[in-house]
C-alpha cells in the first residue's frame, strides 16, 4: 500500500503550475497510482479555478478605472475574430503505451513521461540509469533501475532528492517503500536504500549525492551519476 505522498504545499504548487516539469511529472505519476492525492488535486484545482475566475471578476468592480483601461487596450474583438476564423478541431490522441527495458525486463513507462526523451543508459554495478532529457539546468531527472540485491551506499544530498517508485520495492533505515510511493528527501536526510527484489524508480535531484561513509567516500566522483 502506498504510504508516502507529496506534501500539501507541493500539491498546491503543482496545481498552480509553479513546479518544474520534473517535479510536476513526479506528482502526476504518483497521483495516477494514488486515489487519495488524485482527489486532493482535483478538489484543489476546482477551488483554485473558481477562485481565479471569481476574484479577478470582483476586482473589476473594486479596482480603479485606470487598470481597467489597460485591460481594454488589447483588442479583444480582433482576437475573437482571429480565433473563430479557424475551423481546426483539436482531438485527443490515443494513448500509446511506451516501454523501456532494463536488464531484459520490460517496463511500461508512465503516460506522463511518454513525450520525454530518454538519454542513453549507463551502468554501475547493479544500477542502471537513463537520464530524462528535460533541460532543467541543475535539476536532473532519471529512470533508475536497481537489480535485485542492489543498493545505493549511504549518502546525503545538498539539495533535494525525489524518488517515485514505478515498480518493485526498496527499503532503507526508515522502512519499506512500494510501487507508487512518493519519497521526497532533503539535505537533512541520510540514507542507504537497498532493493532486495529489484525496482524501477523515477528520480529527480538538484544536486549530486554525497557519500558519507568509509570507503564509499571514494564514490563521491560518481555521486552525480546516480541521481
Amino acid at each position, binding site marked *: 500500500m502506498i504510504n508516502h505522498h507529496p506534501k500539501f504545499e507541493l500539491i498546491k504548487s503543482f496545481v498552480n503550475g509553479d513546479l518544474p516539469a520534473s517535479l510536476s511529472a513526479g506528482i502526476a505519476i504518483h497521483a495516477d497510482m494514488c486515489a487519495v492525492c488524485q482527489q486532493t488535486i482535483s478538489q484543489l484545482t476546482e477551488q483554485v479555478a473558481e477562485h481565479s*475566475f471569481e476574484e479577478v471578476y470582483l476586482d473589476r*468592480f473594486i479596482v480603479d478605472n485606470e487598470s481597467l483601461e489597460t485591460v481594454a487596450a*488589447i483588442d479583444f474583438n480582433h482576437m475573437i475574430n482571429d480565433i473563430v476564423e*479557424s*475551423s481546426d478541431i483539436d482531438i485527443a490522441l490515443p*494513448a500509446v503505451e511506451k516501454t523501456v527495458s532494463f536488464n531484459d525486463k520490460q517496463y511500461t513507462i508512465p503516460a506522463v513521461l511518454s*513525450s520525454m526523451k530518454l538519454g542513453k543508459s549507463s551502468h554501475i554495478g547493479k544500477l542502471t540509469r537513463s537520464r530524462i532529457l528535460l533541460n532543467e539546468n541543475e535539476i536532473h531527472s532519471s529512470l533508475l533501475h536497481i537489480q535485485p540485491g542492489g543498493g545505493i551506499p549511504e549518502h546525503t544530498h545538498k539539495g533535494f532528492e525525489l524518488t517515485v517508485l514505478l515498480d518493485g520495492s526498496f527499503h532503507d533505515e526508515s522502512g519499506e517503500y512500494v510501487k507508487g510511493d512518493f519519497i521526497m528527501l532533503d539535505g537533512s536526510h541520510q540514507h542507504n536504500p537497498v532493493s532486495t527484489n529489484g525496482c524501477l524508480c523515477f528520480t529527480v535531484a538538484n544536486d549530486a549525492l554525497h557519500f558519507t561513509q568509509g570507503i564509499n567516500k571514494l564514490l563521491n566522483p560518481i555521486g552525480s551519476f546516480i541521481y
Partner: protein
Amino acid sequence: MQTNLLSKETSAKSTNMSDKINHPQLCQWLDAIAQSRDKQAFTHLFNFFAPKILRIARGKFPNEAQANEVVQDTMSNVWRKAHLFNKDKGAATTWVYTVMRNVTFDMLRKIQGNKEDNLSDDIWPVAESMSCESKGFDDHLADKKLLSVIEALPQAQQDVIKGFYLREMSQEQLAIHLNLPLGTVKSRLRLALGKLKVQLGEKHD
C-alpha cells in the same frame, strides 16, 4: 446608518454574491461551441474569461506581449478543444483553468530556454483518453477515398498523418524522421485529425 467604509464592504460582498459564477451558463456556451462551432457563444465565453486570464497572465509574465499570447492561446484552445470538455467531470471554470495553466506552463518552459516540448497536456490531461474515437479513425482511414481528404490537408499535417496512420510509424519515429520536436509532431497530428473529423462529419451528413 452605516459608515462609508462599511457600506463599501457590504457592496463588495453583495457584488461577490450576485457575481457568483453562472456555471450552467458557461457549460451551455462550451457545449454550443462543441456542437455547432457557435461563434456567439464563444464571444460570450471570451468576454467572461479573457479579461481574467489577462490579469492572471500579467502576474506571471512581465512582458505584455507574452501575457496577451496566453489569452490568445488559451482562448484559441478553448475554441478548438471545447468538445473535449466533459461537464460530468468538473466545472467549466476548472477546465478553462487547466487549459490556461497548461498554456502558461509550456510558455514559461519555452521562455526559460528549456524546451519547446509542450509537456503540459501529459502532466495535466485536458481530456480523458479518447481511444474509442481514434479507433473509428483507423477504420475510416482504411477507406481509400479518404486519401483525397488527407491530401487536401496542409503538407506539414499530411506528413505526420500519413506517417502515423498509413505507414504506422510511432510518434517518436516520426519526430526523428521529420526532424521535428515530438511536441510539434503531436500537435500537427491532433490538428490533422481534427480537420479530418470536420471533413468526415460534413461528408457523412
